């Protein structure tokens, strides 16, 4: 049974796609670029942030000394400098998103835990951008060099090469999540020399749901690439989507809807995957989490179904 599974067409295709991914230069280059971006972001959020606090009359060294002396943490010592601190951790809500952003410049991130630093400083924007670049290149490369012919030449069930990409996309999302976690640890240690491992239920929910969001985004990018079969179109769409530029025209539509139905609370932008990814952090209200999960699952199902249906009877010319 296991040998039969190992030699199945689907498994062969998954192994082929994984080998191809591993051998693609872009795959490694994007990790390198992302790491540099994480380092830069880390510098801004940790070094610059704490330096602003120092300028306000609190040198970092004095804070660290005070921390040792009073058997306290920098986090507690800084608590006095801000009233909005609490929003960054447990009780922050979606509507308080702007207040959370205000925390930057108050030195809070310096002593933030791994999970909170991961979610509030980096959010999902960097790795979604990297995914938006990689997926179209990965898919379109196969079509442009003609290797796809070789797959069709050996497999009659045309949906299998498409489905295998969604499986590889799942593994790719997982790799990015782990990579982002490692980067968070490295950057935190590099700039602060300390890391706090406080992990509560909300943190675990965050990691799980942010992974689902990431995979949903991968699926959307895969679907766009599989449907258009044009590198330029797919790249432009995926990058603008990841950067939130697609939200601009959609927010215009929202405004129009609001002008027609002034009492309606409905906003399309709330259901956009990139908007959800950008606003999601540890401790956000459960309504947001539920919405994130539902939107992600809908995106995954629609992406897979559309890609398979459109390519089922499509000729490779």
């Amino acid at each position, binding site marked *: 049974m296991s040998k039969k599974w190992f*030699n199945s*067409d689907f498994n*062969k*295709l998954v*192994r*082929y796609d994984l*080998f*191809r991914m591993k*051998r*693609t*230069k872009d795959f490694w280059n994007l990790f390198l670029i992302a790491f540099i971006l994480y380092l830069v972001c880390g510098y801004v959020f940790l070094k610059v942030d704490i330096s602003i606090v120092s300028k306000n009359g609190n040198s970092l060294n004095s804070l660290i000394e005070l921390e040792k002396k009073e058997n306290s943490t920098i986090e507690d010592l800084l608590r006095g400098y801000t009233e909005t601190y609490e929003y960054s951790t447990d009780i922050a809500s979606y509507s308080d998103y702007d207040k959370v952003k205000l925390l930057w410049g108050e030195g809070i991130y310096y002593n933030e835990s791994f999970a909170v630093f991961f979610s509030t400083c980096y959010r999902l924007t960097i790795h979604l951008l990297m995914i938006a670049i990689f997926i179209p290149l990965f898919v379109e*490369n196969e079509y442009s*060099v*003609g*290797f*796809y*012919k*070789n*797959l*069709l*030449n*050996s*497999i*009659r*069930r045309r949906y299998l090469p498409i489905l295998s990409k969604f499986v590889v996309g799942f593994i790719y999302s997982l790799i990015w999540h782990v990579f982002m976690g490692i980067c968070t640890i490295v950057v935190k240690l590099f700039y602060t020399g300390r890391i706090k491992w406080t992990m509560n239920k909300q943190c675990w929910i965050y990691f799980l749901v942010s992974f689902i969001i990431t995979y949903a985004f991968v699926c959307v990018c895969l679907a766009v690439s599989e449907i258009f079969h044009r590198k330029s179109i797919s790249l432009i769409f995926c990058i603008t989507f990841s950067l939130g530029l697609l939200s601009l025209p959609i927010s215009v539509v929202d405004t129009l809807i609001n002008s027609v139905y002034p009492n309606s609370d409905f906003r399309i932008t709330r259901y956009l995957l990139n908007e959800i990814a950008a606003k999601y952090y540890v401790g956000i209200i459960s309504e947001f989490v539920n919405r994130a999960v539902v939107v992600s699952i809908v995106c995954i199902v629609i992406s897979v179904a559309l890609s398979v249906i459109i390519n089922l*009877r499509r*000729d*490779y*010319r």
Partner: protein
Amino acid sequence: MSDFLLTTENLTKVYAKKVVVDNVNLHIKRGSIYGLIGRNGAGKTTFMKMITGVILQSSGTFNFEGFECTTNEALSHVGALIEYPALYPDLSAYDNIKLKAIAYGVDCDKKKIAALLHKVGLGDVNDKKIRKYSYGMRQRLGIAMALVSEPDFLVLDEPINGLDPQGIAEVRELLIKLNKENGITILISSHILEELAKLVTDYAIIENGKIIEESTREELQSKCTNRITILSSDMSKILPVIEAAGITKYSMTDNRTLEIFERVDEAGEINALLVKQGIAVESISVTKKDLETYFLDIIRGN
């Protein structure tokens, strides 16, 4: 076991209401090298793409070693090089072959890949990236890729296009070797008809998506050989004379026309001999026909 490796039944492809391949019925014998001849746009590549599963037929079926075209088994023993070699330019020959082997579920270790590369004359490429390969090297690697799955049937679309004379000769020798030593049946198309003539055992001429002639090498050779054509109403007198002159390779196409396939340069002497015997010769002409002339005649409807 059938003599035919591949049979197609009314295979048809329609693109946007245009019939590109029209009810093609082809029979490819096991162990043959089958040449598909046709102009650009005649439907050769589309036909090849259909039988290799790259595109789906609009109607009709094909049968490969008894397996219906809808099954994976029908494709599992087919190797193909269609239009251009499908290679990742940033990878080495080793990685490209490895990738195809994984996709086909074939065990392909370094030793086997090295042997494949050696077979197509690329034994010394090492880790060189494909983007640094010449066109000829890519074509050879394309053939090596087609051989990864150890196919019984090789489909090659214009494999010698763009190769220098030495490259053409090498590919020809390779294909003959694969056919003779490994028993691989080959379907090949090319615009270089004289080169094709040195290779193939069977032919089909395709025009506007239709097969307009299917013949063996012998049949085609007889149609293409240089000949003396004699038109006379005294045919009963002519035959003993030419046999007495030692001519054995001749045929009567009808009761007034005789074609002689030897001593073509001696048409004048043969004419003098017939006249000397008092035979009325209405006309005598020499026809020089190679495959290209024959092909052009056929597609012009002559």
